[in-house]
């Protein structure tokens, strides 16, 4: 029988070399040889082994002839946004609509490379490929994506929508995005990933961002994938002093999803908001690994992840919060709440706090429970049917996670999709 490592080699054998940075690709290739592929034996992947993904080797899709006609480039009705669209990891330029303004550089990552906007040795901010096999795969086979850079003080007048569509059987996509928000600048980004029925393979996406002093970056990240795609998403964000970073991650639908979110506060006075919601059905798998790293004094973070596990769905919440020795006066909050709606579903929830400073306020809570049957009966006793009563309670449960979206249109679309999917209408 083939070992996992053999399988891993075969899995990526059909991929085209990275179209991005040659040095990063080379570093990725070297790391691939050394890093173990995550199986049940690796602690960080114990409940999300990649073994089922490795069964079917993937290939890089040919360059797209154009954007598929039956897929809206902007999946969010009413959202007035700039737009960069990717098909299987490759930008489709004729379907993009990018800002042109003083102090704003917004283009494809490949164009940014060719214009020399990314310095030698500055291609990679996360060093993800040095830590994880998944990161090494990404680095070795990274494709195209968003390059957004705002000069100091620039406020982008509209959000930038990054729509990634994965299609075809056993296709690998490795989109890569880079966002740099200058001091006191402000950007909003909407990351939307979609896939049609019948799509399969891997989406291995990375977003690296730097939020400058006094700057703000907001991200609405929505996963709405049909088919059987393995989605591996990694965001790596560093914050300078007095900056704010916010991200809302909602998995509306996804066959197998692993979100890895790392936020590093480098400057004092920074604030971070991380919200997440997931409502998997069937045999879907959703894993959220987050790391909040407080390294400097006077910073705050607020993390709230909630989800409902239906049918035979499985998943993980792992939330790490580091408060380093110098990070006095940190105020860190983390809450994770889960409802296991059906007996066949399971969630492994693990908050991990490591606190090395002594003058801090840290609170965390983690709950795994069932629907409150008494509350359900109360609603039903007023004439509300079982299904509608459950819908009311679900909406109430995840309501506070869905608050604070950057774009109200995204929130509305997400609620609409969830309502459709779960029969709340």
């Amino acid at each position, binding site marked *: 029988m083939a070992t996992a490592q053999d399988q891993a080699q075969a899995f990526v054998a059909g991929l085209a070399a990275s179209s991005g940075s040659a040095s990063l690709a080379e570093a990725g290739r070297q790391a691939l040889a050394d890093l173990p592929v995550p199986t049940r034996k690796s602690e960080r992947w114990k409940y999300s082994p990649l073994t089922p993904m490795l069964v079917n080797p993937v290939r890089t899709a040919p360059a797209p002839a154009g954007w598929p006609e039956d897929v809206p480039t902007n999946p969010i009705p009413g959202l007035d946004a700039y737009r960069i669209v990717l098909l299987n990891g490759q930008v489709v330029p004729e379907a993009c609509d990018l800002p042109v303004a003083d102090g704003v550089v917004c283009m494809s990552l490949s164009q940014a490379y060719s214009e020399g906007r990314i310095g030698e040795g500055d291609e990679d901010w996360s060093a993800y490929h040095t830590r994880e096999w998944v990161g090494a795969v990404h680095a070795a086979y990274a494709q195209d994506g968003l390059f957004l850079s705002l000069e100091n003080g620039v406020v982008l007048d509209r959000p930038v929508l990054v729509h990634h569509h994965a299609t075809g059987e056993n296709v690998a996509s490795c989109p890569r995005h880079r966002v740099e928000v200058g001091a006191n600048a402000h950007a909003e980004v909407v990351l939307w990933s979609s896939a049609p029925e019948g799509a399969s393979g891997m989406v291995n996406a990375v977003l690296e961002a730097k939020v400058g002093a006094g700057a703000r970056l907001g991200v609405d990240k929505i996963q709405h994938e049909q088919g059987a795609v393995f989605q591996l998403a990694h965001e790596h964000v560093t914050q300078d002093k007095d900056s704010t970073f916010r991200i809302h991650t909602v998995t509306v639908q996804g066959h197998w999803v692993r979100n890895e979110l790392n936020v590093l506060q480098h400057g004092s006075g920074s604030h971070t908001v991380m919200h997440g919601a997931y409502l998997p059905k069937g045999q879907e798998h959703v894993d959220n690994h987050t790391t909040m790293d407080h390294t400097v004094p006077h910073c705050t973070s607020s993390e709230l992840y909630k989800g409902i596990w239906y049918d035979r769905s499985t998943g993980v919440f792992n939330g790490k919060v580091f408060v380093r020795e110098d990070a006095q006066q940190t105020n860190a909050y983390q809450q994770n709440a889960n409802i296991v709606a059906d007996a066949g579903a399971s969630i492994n929830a693990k908050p991990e706090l490591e606190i090395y400073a002594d003058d801090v306020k840290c609170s965390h809570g983690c709950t795994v429970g069932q629907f409150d049957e008494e509350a359900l*009966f*109360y*609603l*039903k*006793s007023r*004439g509300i049917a079982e299904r*509608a009563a459950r819908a009311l309670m679900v*909406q*109430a449960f995840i309501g506070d996670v869905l608050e604070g979206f950057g774009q109200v249109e995204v929130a509305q679309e997400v609620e609409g999709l969830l309502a459709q999917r779960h029969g709340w209408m």
Partner: protein
Amino acid sequence: MLTINNLHARVEDTPILKGLNLEIGPGEVHAIMGPNGSGKSTLASVLAGREDYEVTAGSVDFDGTDLLELDASDRAREGLFLAFQYPVEIPGVSNLNFMKAAVNAKREHQGLEPIAAKDFLAMVKEKAALVELDGRLRDRSVNEGFSGGEKKRNEIFQMAMLEPKLAVLDETDSGLDIDALRIVSEGVNAMRNAGRSFLVITHYQRLLDHIVPDFVHVLSDGQIVKSGPKELALELEAKGYDWIKEPVA
């Protein structure tokens, strides 16, 4: 309006109702009194359709419908209302959205369009005034952070919104101070009419000073052992329940 015939019910393996008979006519107010453990709250739960209770024998006819065949929400849509002894807190569900869903569920059952927003708000204003439920409480999550009195007033507000044919008040007086008792009772009295019946379940007579019943029944060990006019309640208050525990043939 309601005919209960030889009703037997149990929780798990413990029989609680053991052959209960009761007839309530339109517009009548019946009080059920009885010692703790006699089955008062079980009767309320069985009528409302709580699934923890198993009916093992007997029948309940509600205005021509076999009540026991319906699930809890259908019973409510047919016009049954239970004011809970312990109203449930539901964080995140606003009182108003809750009531709108309930009112519209009933309207759908009656073949009516959903209520217009303007009409709904006018209705809320009118019904909330009945029990002096101020805007702050109407807009909050259902019962979340409400005092005991506020919760009971909210029950009566919901009853007024849903205009039931039969309202079952399960120990509505528990946890009420004298002012709240007056407000709740006035709310109930304002809703009394020739077509609406009430079943008032209480341990104490004092509620019946405010909501004056047409009939008083004594429940003991799962059966009604004595029935009489409203004066029976006073007699129970004076003498306690012990003298009546043995059924009078």
